[in-house]
């Protein structure tokens, strides 16, 4: 399971950090890697797979915030282990730097070396726990100004959603002190759900899935024990016994197909009262990942029409309707639709009084793009586009266009109805009352409507 080298490259291929643990891989591995990734295939669309072999050296990489985190080895290792490790290294570094990007990385590369020294020794993983690492790492992070931060992680979206959330909290280093010199006692629990839905051309749901995570980031001193209570009507695993499970169709109860847990989580009373107990380690980590294919109400209904309107013309109408309560507001919505290849021009007609909407036709990839700053629950929005073609077409125009895909974020809303009923912190004293933030968010993973 040993890796030989670890390095981080910028998007342009510069070394940001480079560590050789076993001196088994010849020099120039960073260049070899970068060339291979950049020019993977003559086909421009094909992305380099995360694992490949060049001259007996195996290269593993994950892309995080535009940076390549790379490991090399000559050994036939477990691929999941290395990829997991790379992702984990990125997370540890983020815990330390607060914000992970090329700038913060470059400013703190000595600290990163310090971390790497403790994370891996002679190619063997020692620890990736921020908590454990804290006692070995002495550099103070140089925290970059929050103003320069970019929204890079799901948690960053909260800064736009709810005003009462302290936006910088989630980008706070686990070790850095506040300017005031005092650490605020607080804990964040985020329920993040990524949903995938495919609608058929006639509008019914072909596939739907929720991939959820309960993410935690604790800034509590003294590592108190925490109990999280989930819905009492939560059920896990419907695969085997769905035949006898009448509840699944009645709509009551949350049925997860499957879930897994962080190693710190104890499930002693999970079966009886659906509570998870844990002593949260420092840093950000997923308490629980879950997957759900139980039917749910998709947050948006999409209706698309494409019609020929003359010899070289066609009209597209896209209607989206928000199917969630009116006190919920979705933000950063984009709608995309590939248009027929011979489309030369598209003119748009937004609804009257539309604010915060933009529409565009990307000539290079023949893509219609419609973006909306926000959509209030219950609202409906329409886009009309007139297309001009450069040549006559034959056959079915619907086969030449679509499907329509959407991305969006809906804060304080989750489609699965999974809830954190309460978040209990073992008390140290009666005056101890740290801030607890329990936040929900729904995001589109793959939200597609065929036409």
């Amino acid at each position, binding site marked *: 399971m*040993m890796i030989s080298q670890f390095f981080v490259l910028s998007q342009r291929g510069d070394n940001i950090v480079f560590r*050789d643990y076993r001196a088994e891989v010849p020099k120039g591995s960073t*260049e070899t890697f970068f060339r291979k990734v950049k020019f993977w295939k003559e*086909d421009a669309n094909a992305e380099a797979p995360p694992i490949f072999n060049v001259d007996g050296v195996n290269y593993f990489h*994950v892309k995080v915030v535009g940076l390549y985190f790379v490991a090399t080895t000559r050994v036939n290792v477990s691929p999941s282990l290395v990829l997991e490790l790379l992702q984990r290294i990125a997370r540890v570094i983020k815990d330390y730097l607060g914000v992970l990007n090329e700038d913060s990385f470059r400013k703190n590369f000595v600290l990163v070396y310090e971390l790497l020294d403790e994370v891996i*020794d002679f190619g063997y993983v020692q620890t990736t726990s921020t908590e454990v690492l804290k006692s070995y790492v002495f550099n103070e992070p140089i925290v970059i100004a929050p103003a320069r931060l970019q929204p890079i992680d799901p948690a960053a979206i909260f800064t736009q959603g709810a005003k009462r959330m302290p936006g910088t909290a989630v980008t706070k280093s686990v070790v850095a002190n506040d300017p005031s010199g005092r650490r605020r006692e607080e804990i964040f629990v985020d329920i993040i759900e990524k949903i995938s839905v*495919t609608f058929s051309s006639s509008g019914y749901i072909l596939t739907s899935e929720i991939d959820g995570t309960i993410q935690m980031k604790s800034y509590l001193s003294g590592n108190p024990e925490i109990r999280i209570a989930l819905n009492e009507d939560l059920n896990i695993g419907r695969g085997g016994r769905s035949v006898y499970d009448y509840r699944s169709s009645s709509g009551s109860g949350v049925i997860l197909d499957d879930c897994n847990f962080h190693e710190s989580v104890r499930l002693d009373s999970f079966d009886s009262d659906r509570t998870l107990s844990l002593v949260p380690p420092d840093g950000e980590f997923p308490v629980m990942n879950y997957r759900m294919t139980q039917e749910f109400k998709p947050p948006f209904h999409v209706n698309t029409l494409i019609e020929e309107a003359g010899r070289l013309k066609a009209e597209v109408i896209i209607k989206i309707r928000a199917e969630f309560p009116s006190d919920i507001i979705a933000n950063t919505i984009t709608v995309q639709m590939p248009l027929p290849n011979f489309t030369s021009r598209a003119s748009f007609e937004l609804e009257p009084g539309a604010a915060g909407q933009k529409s565009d036709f990307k000539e290079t*990839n023949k893509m219609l793009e419609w973006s909306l700053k926000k959509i209030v629950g219950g609202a409906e929005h329409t886009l009309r586009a007139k297309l001009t073609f450069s040549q006559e077409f034959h056959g079915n125009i619907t*086969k030449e266009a679509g499907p329509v895909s959407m991305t969006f974020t809906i804060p304080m809303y989750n489609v699965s109805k999974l809830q954190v009923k309460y978040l209990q912190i073992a008390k140290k004293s009666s005056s101890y009352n740290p801030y607890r933030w329990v936040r929900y968010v729904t995001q589109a993973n793959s939200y597609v409507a065929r036409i």
Partner: protein
Amino acid sequence: MPPPAASSRYPSPSQPSGKSEVTDLKSQLRQLAGSRAPGVDDSKRDLFKKVISYMTIGIDVSSVFGEMVMCSATSDIVLKKMCYLYVGNYAKGNPDLSLLTINFLQRDCKDEDPMIRGLALRSLCSLRVPNLVEYLLGPLGSGLKDNNSYVRTIAVTGVLKLYHISASTCIDAEFPATLKSLMLHDSDAQVVANCLAALQEIWSLEASHSEEACREKESLLSKPLIYYFLNRIKEFNEWAQCLILELAVKYVPSDSNDIFDIMNLLEDRLQHANGAVVLATVKVFLQLTLSMTDVHQQVYERIKSPLLTLVSSGSPEQSYAILSHLHLLVVRAPFIFASDYKHFYCQYNEPSYVKKLKLEMLTAIANESNTYEIVTELCEYAANVDIEIARESIRAVGKIALQQYDVNAIVDRLLQFLEMEKDYVTAETLVLVKDLLRKHPQWSHDCISVVGGISSKNIQEPKAKAALIWMLGEYAQDMSDAPYILENLIENWEEEHSAEVRLHLLTAAMKCFFKRAPETQKALGIALAAGIADFHQDVHDRALFYYRVLQYDVHVAERVVSPPQQAVSAFADTQSSEIKDRIFDEFNSLSVIYQKPSYIFTDKEHRGPFEFSDELGSTSITPEVSSDIVPAQQFEANDKDLLLSTDEKDDNKGLSSNNGSAYTAPYESSNISSQMQELAISGPAASATTTQSSFDFDDLLGLGLSTAPAPTPSPPLLKLNARAALDPRAFQQKWRQLPISLSQEYSVNPQGIAALTVPQSLIKHMQSHSIHCIASGGQSPNFKFFFFAQKEAEPLDYLTECIINSSSAKAQIKVKADEQSTSQAFATVFETALSKFGMP
């Protein structure tokens, strides 16, 4: 490593200016070295940072080595760490200077702060300078006994580092024994885990020359030790858990209770959020239950859900690693995943490497119950904006069509693709329709009517064009325009750049001629003339061959070029089952990602944990070892080494990438037979031999041989050494080195085929003719053998690869010989021996 272009924030880069900056640094460092002024550590920090940053981007800063060491006298731990990092990086290249560091590192190893002791010990062991190892022994010895666990973990890994610098020093100091005792008694889990990792590495490397190490290595797999680890697995961190699980995979359980005990101990590991832990657990479960069919199947059901959750919870990269493993499981047991097909639908924003994997999985899962839905979904992708994925999707539909019995609905779908009028869609579809017709000629009527309507002008891709031309020739009687389309294409001979297409044009013109002579005669004449004048050797040879055969006898020509159609039963692109099993044995490794066994892409010393399974695993997995075939079984691994080389070749012949193979002959061996045809015409004796009325490939073959280079008086006097022996490894090496001196095809008599139910029957038979089997594999109808024989009284070896297809009753052999001139004589002996196979 040349320095990459640095960003504006780091104005250091190009070598020349880098050099002057380094000199600058050097003098600044020197000034600070002796200073004890307040704030000096801060200035040092800045300078050290600069040095490290140069080092990172590849500027050689080794020239400041001395100054760095001088500055290292400090109590500032951040400074110390930077200094250690620097020293570790440059010590190897500056062994003399490294001696300077020994002093302060050894002193730090005795520091009262355990952190400093640990760091210093780690740096000391990382110097990688062989003549400094004597300085390591003392600090390592005390490090292993340190009362601080941080120091002990570092010391344990330090022992491994020492082993890699000087194995004998490490063994002589009896460090492995100390590690073993620490592994069993230390209270710190990470110390224990590092001991396990270090001992596994050391003993595996030692095992090749030390029996004791071999025993020690096996003792790691003893029942008490395995349970010692598994019982306390939760005390270890997730990475160490992977290490333990990887060890447990190699454990051979004593009975079924043992198996269930282990599975119960590890059951909750399947709920771990770390995919590596889950996959390692899955591997333990799969390997443990291999011999228990029912339980094995339950394991599949059990692991399905956790793996699917991991696929959707991680980054695309992590999903890819998990999906690759699911892919392997899906291909092994498609029925278990048949109802989960929707999980493998592509999402529009997934990277193409994930999509491709999913398409393959959908193809594998398709069965009677889900084909309709899967094909419907795949058809959606065919209109995808990503052209590569669209192509793959169409190929997937084609593959499903080929593997299903009831292809009716799918054929319609495929034909609908042709109506989409997208060039690449049409091109892919044509290739698939061609393959479909080769396997299911009964669909010709439906397909041909649609294909006939395609304008050949719109088809540019060589493979698609070749497919269309093949269909025009093969079904000339059903397509009224066939001769005219061909004529049109032939008239543009000069513009046709692909030799593959020109070869097909020749063959199609011939076929068409036999069916509709009056309409094709003129075109065929032009084609043959153009072909003979063609600069491409294959095209030239084929044209000349056709010309001569036609000249000789038109009926013979027809029998050769246009034999009655026969359906292809299986395409030769599937990986052999041994390869698949081998990859399965290497579950949770790169073998699964690359879909190749590890010996293909790693050298022996880097196969890592699988060194164990080579020896232990294979015997437990292949229980039916009968005594007289031991040599073949024992060296199964090497056998597979060899088998794969041809397997890859087969891949190339496969569906998706039909190379220049002629579709004339209805067998997989079409390539060979067409080569033989070509061989035949270049022979000067051609007309003489073809006067025989019987005309089959064997005759052609004989013909080809008579023209073989270096004709020998082929005396059948070759005597073989009945007791010859060759180590499979030597065989393998030889096989790689020697060129093929002879390649032939024989018919196997029916009695022989009847006797060839298992490879062993032939192995025994050949052995009685002093031809010994080194390795064998395969199952009906394809068998593959590697034989070895030695000339009597002389150490000259003959290596033979023999592939027998029992349904076509053909044996293809390739001979490699130390003495090329007698390879024909050997082949004769071989053929004689083979011909007696199955005879009473």
